[in-house]
């Protein structure tokens, strides 16, 4: 019987401490056939289980250009993320997916790409970043604007350091006022403000943003000021999910099921939705 609720088993191969209570797991499918056959597109998500605690929804934070494993990044908060935090390298986790739609990266060939992320909103964007970096010649200028509440809260610090060394990327890092340390070399200010100062050109450009709802709201306004049309701007929406496959009835925004018709939307599509955020 085909059981759509039955997860694959994975082994936690590696754990990175990203920030206080934020971890990245590198997961490998236990079944070799699944490992070889598994494929996904950037922007898709899955349901991750800690057996005994339940399932939680996160994006796949790694890039589909990196084969053989997937990564997820999550912040400890509820029952499932708490139980996941208790797991260690070598432990078993469940994964169902990949689900949902994806960023149409192939349609962006030749374009300049602007990434704007805040806090724990970087993981879904990071999948797109590596997807673009792994085929760097397909794209024009790449700009990343990333901020968090404080220096400690910045996730993927190793990768931020790596990106800052790359000459063909413009990386702008910022922390909220008061979140800086004495040796902080990045900007101090909220992401939408820093984005306006960075002023990427909307010409032949695509913008991708993810972060807390309030940040997204002001980032969209900032992009509009900079001359981006809402068709040029992509975001990924998240909502609580239990099934991931369009049946449990809770991730809908009005008549749109995020799990099946999302999570990736253009800002133009978001504007047409029922106000159910």
């Amino acid at each position, binding site marked *: 019987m085909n059981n759509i609720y039955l997860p694959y088993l994975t082994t936690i191969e590696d754990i990175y401490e990203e920030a206080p209570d934020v971890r990245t797991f590198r997961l490998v499918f236990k079944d070799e056939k699944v490992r070889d056959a598994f494929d996904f597109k950037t922007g898709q998500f899955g349901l991750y289980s800690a*057996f*005994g605690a*339940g*399932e939680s929804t996160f994006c796949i934070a790694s890039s589909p250009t990196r084969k053989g494993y997937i990564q997820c990044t999550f912040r400890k*908060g509820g029952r499932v993320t708490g139980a996941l935090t208790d797991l260690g390298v070598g432990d078993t986790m469940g994964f169902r997916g990949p689900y949902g739609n994806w960023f149409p990266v192939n349609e962006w060939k030749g374009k300049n790409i602007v990434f704007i992320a805040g806090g724990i909103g970087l993981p879904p964007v990071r999948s797109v970043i590596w997807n673009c970096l792994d085929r760097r010649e397909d794209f024009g200028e790449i700009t990343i604007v990333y901020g968090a509440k404080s220096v400690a809260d910045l996730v993927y610090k190793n990768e931020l350091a790596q990106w800052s060394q790359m000459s063909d990327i413009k990386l702008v890092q910022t922390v909220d006022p008061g979140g800086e340390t004495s040796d902080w070399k990045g900007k101090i200010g909220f992401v939408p403000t820093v984005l306006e100062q960075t002023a990427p050109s909307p010409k032949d450009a695509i913008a991708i943003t993810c972060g807390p709802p309030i940040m997204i709201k002001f980032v969209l306004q900032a992009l509009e000021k900079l001359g981006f049309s809402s068709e040029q701007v992509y975001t990924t929406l998240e909502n*609580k999910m239990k099934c991931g496959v369009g049946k*449990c*009835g809770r991730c809908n*925004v*009005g008549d749109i099921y995020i799990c099946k018709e999302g999570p990736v939307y253009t800002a133009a599509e978001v504007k047409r939705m029922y106000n159910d955020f």
Partner: protein
Amino acid sequence: MANKLLKKENLGKLIDTLSGEGSIFVAPRMDARQVVYAPVEKMDEIVFDYIIPINSFKEFLFPQTETVAAFSIHKEGVDLRGVEIEPKETVIFGSRPCDAASVASLRAVFNWDFKDEFYNRREDKAVVMTVACTKADESCFCTTVNLTPDSPNGSDILLKETNDNGYIVEALTDKGKKFVERFNNIFTPQPSAFSLQPIADVKHIVGADVKKIQEWLKDTKNYENPIWAELARKCIGCGACTFACPTCHCFDIVDEGSAFEGERIKNWDACQFEFFTLHTSGHNPRDTQYKRWRNRFMCKFNFYPNKFSSRGCVGCGRCIRVCPVRLDITEVMEEVSNQP
């Protein structure tokens, strides 16, 4: 297939034969002084004089709680076992036409793209034997949602009561025809003369216009209309309407057990509960009761018809009967129909 006759006195034989074959016979019966759809083993358990059971029969297709997997956790890892179900044939005798019409709605949700075999296998094995309504109460409103007390939608077999303790039997689907043929000693040829009991007269609620409601809901601006907060003010969020509703399909998936072994279980859930959409971050997209009530109304008159080309509301009236604060969906339908 020509119509048949089923004499009430033959029902006992039908139940005995089916039970002997391992099938389940669900019929209206008494439970705590209420009429419910529940399995029966003897004919005298069946209640024939009823309007509509308090529950819908969706629990026989989509159980209130269902284990989908089991696991044990040990040092070396996790053993995970998916549950396989082989449901028994389940005859639902005495379904009402509204309840039968809801089956297509559940089927649509459980089958768009991803197929839920837990639902499908149960529905495949269910034979819906509907008895057309000869009585209705003040909560019934099937005619307002374009059904009738004798509509055939969703039934495998439709029975209409005669005046002499029998039913005229119309097999509507292949499943229904096979069932009637299988019991040709029980379903006898239709007599040349018979008289049917009159079908219940369910009045169309004049002020409620489903077409108008659907059009009004399509306009995203109306989502912000202050009438939502006004209409849903008395809702206490108990969720009773959702559990009684034959088309409500929402569920939760939870793990239960000890630290070493447990089960993954799909349980009915309700969009009326605050925790239903609450994010771990504390953000809740439907953070007040009227937003949750609006979601349910939208589900019935917008999501189901537009997304699944099926009915969200079959007019059974259960949500009206069970509501502790008398928040009557037909009053909201009228109010929305009156909007400019």
